[in-house]
């Protein structure tokens, strides 16, 4: 993540431990959760109020609910209008001033819970009333039109799983092994099932003019975020999304409407989408000129570097975790903005020997793919690495090869092989090889 020195509202630094060590439970925490238990037993009307209160209590003192000695001898909690995870579960995003990181090291499978999907915004998360929200499409179209959210939901819908990765994911790793955990090194990528209407369907409705080749997408946030999108490469897959993992988009994911460009950098997937302007050239906005361009060692920058290339990371065991001798299933995620992951290999000796990992189905294009690799840890020092290959034949590069071509100043699109060092005491740390 590129550090942007904006005078952003100061938030309290996160007190959440980024690793997955055993949580400590204070007596204060138990008291708070007794309160939660009591409210949970209250009426549905009381429940609505509890919804507003409980999350803030949790943020201050994550803790477990009161536990009966034998859950088979006391009645359990009543149904609730909107569920919450078990009180024992501690995984949280790690927030900075304008982004938050997904706790990849504690998640399973390929879908990121909506509440843990990473965030990146350029002047906060706006509050938008969906009843008042409009999408305007104009420029090189037959006739300018506005669409309500209701209009957009009446079009034929499309659902697909896709990852979204911030172009700046792992940007801290160019110069040194900086992130201590997988969350800190790779937490700006997440996968959801997205539902919406195909961009092509809506553009047909307005009548695209032949000379239209680029589209400006604009958000309704306080940055009025804009990016120019070339139409030809996105027409088959781009979606205007209103849902994520089956429910409405989260506010931080663009509620009520976002653009999804599967496989392309997250910044181009404009959130809080309010306007699409069709043109015949890129609009050269701030975000595609002074930012989100990749400076090469010769001083020339690459522009419109949309695709997120193949990348993988071992999420367990990963930095900050603790190994115990014996069987260890090495687990991780692999993904490619160019299509399906076809192969993931794992090395436990710093890259001398590579062996194929098992890919967990489903293996979907432009989507996180879960890989697994059985291993016996015998208490010796080890360097764990993963590398993936996608359906174009592209293989994730080593850090050395990536830097040899791009130097240290390109900020975005770092996709080198990640190494985790296992010490003799079982501790795991970030160690670039």
């Amino acid at each position, binding site marked *: 993540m590129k550090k942007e020195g904006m005078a952003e509202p100061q938030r309290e630094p996160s007190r959440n431990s980024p690793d997955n060590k055993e949580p400590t439970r204070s007596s204060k925490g138990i008291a708070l959760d007794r309160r939660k238990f009591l409210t949970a037993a209250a009426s549905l009307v009381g429940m609505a109020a509890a919804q507003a209160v409980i999350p803030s209590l949790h943020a201050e003192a994550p803790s477990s609910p009161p536990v009966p000695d034998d859950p088979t001898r006391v009645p359990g909690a009543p149904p609730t209008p909107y569920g919450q995870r078990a009180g024992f579960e501690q995984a949280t995003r790690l927030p900075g001033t304008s982004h938050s990181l997904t706790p990849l090291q504690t998640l399973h499978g390929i879908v990121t819970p909506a509440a843990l999907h990473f965030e990146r915004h350029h002047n906060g998360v706006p509050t938008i009333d969906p009843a008042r929200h409009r999408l305007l499409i104009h420029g090189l179209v037959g006739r300018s039109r506005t669409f309500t959210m209701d209009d957009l939901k009446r079009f034929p819908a499309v659902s697909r799983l896709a990852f979204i990765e911030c172009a700046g994911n792992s940007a801290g790793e160019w110069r040194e092994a900086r992130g201590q955990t997988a969350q800190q090194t790779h937490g700006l990528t997440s996968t959801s099932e997205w539902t919406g209407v195909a961009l*092509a369907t809506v553009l047909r409705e307005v009548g695209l003019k032949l000379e239209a080749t680029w589209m400006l997408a604009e958000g309704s946030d306080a940055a009025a975020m804009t990016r120019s999108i070339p139409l030809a490469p996105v027409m088959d897959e781009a979606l205007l999304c209103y849902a994520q993992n089956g429910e409405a988009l989260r506010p931080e994911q663009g509620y009520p409407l976002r653009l999804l460009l599967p496989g392309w950098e997250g910044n181009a997937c404009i959130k809080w989408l309010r306007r699409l302007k069709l043109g015949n050239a890129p609009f050269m906005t701030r975000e595609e000129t002074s930012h989100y361009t990749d400076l090469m060692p010769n001083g020339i920058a690459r*522009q419109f570097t949309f695709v997120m290339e193949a990348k993988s990371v071992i999420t367990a065991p990963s930095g900050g975790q603790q190994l115990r001798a014996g069987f260890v299933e090495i687990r991780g995620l692999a993904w490619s903005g160019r299509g399906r992951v076809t192969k993931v290999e794992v090395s436990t000796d710093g890259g001398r020997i590579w062996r194929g990992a098992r890919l967990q189905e489903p293996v979907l294009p432009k989507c996180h793919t879960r890989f697994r690799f059985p291993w016996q840890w015998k208490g010796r020092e080890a360097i764990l690495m993963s590398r993936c290959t996608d359906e174009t034949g592209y293989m994730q590069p080593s850090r050395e090869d990536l830097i040899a071509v791009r130097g240290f100043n390109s900020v975005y699109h770092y996709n080198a092989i990640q190494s985790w060092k296992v010490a003799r005491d079982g501790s795991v740390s970030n160690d670039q090889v």
Partner: protein
Amino acid sequence: MIKCRSHLLAAVGGLGVLVACTGSGEAPQEGSGYGLGRPATEAQVKAWDIDVSPTGEGLPPGRGTVEEGGKVFAAKCASCHGPTGVEGPADRLVGGRGTLATAKPIKTVGSYWPYSTTLYDYIHRAMPYNTPQSLKPDEVYAVVAWILHRNGIIPEDAVMDATTLPGVQMPNRRGFLPDSRPDVKGE
């Protein structure tokens, strides 16, 4: 300028099938599909159509001088960007020429930004950070003039308006190339 832009277009367009070949480029009749949405009025489009293109399309009437810009900058920008646009803590705006190929590149409006028009577009849409879209066109033109002048790009007596701004040539105008990846491959 035109040559370089078509170069980019061709390169990015090469990533996929041309629109004209997908069928969607055949300009189907408006409203021939699902009958959803409603025609946008001219006033609706005008109210939201705030972007400014590299050719200056979208620039509003108004004008601003370097001197006026200095006052606006001191009052509304300096608290984040520093008194001379160098000190920060927010993005550095001034200086950095000649650093892009060094170990510590300094990316500023003067050293990195390829288009002068982007400055108007961005300041108008997103600045000041706490009160975006609050500056009047004259104020935006003035701040743009001041930042360009501090970077040695326009003289102190220059006036920025819808005619002069698009004509300002930025030092790093030729500093960008299209995406040439994949450029690095594993073994």
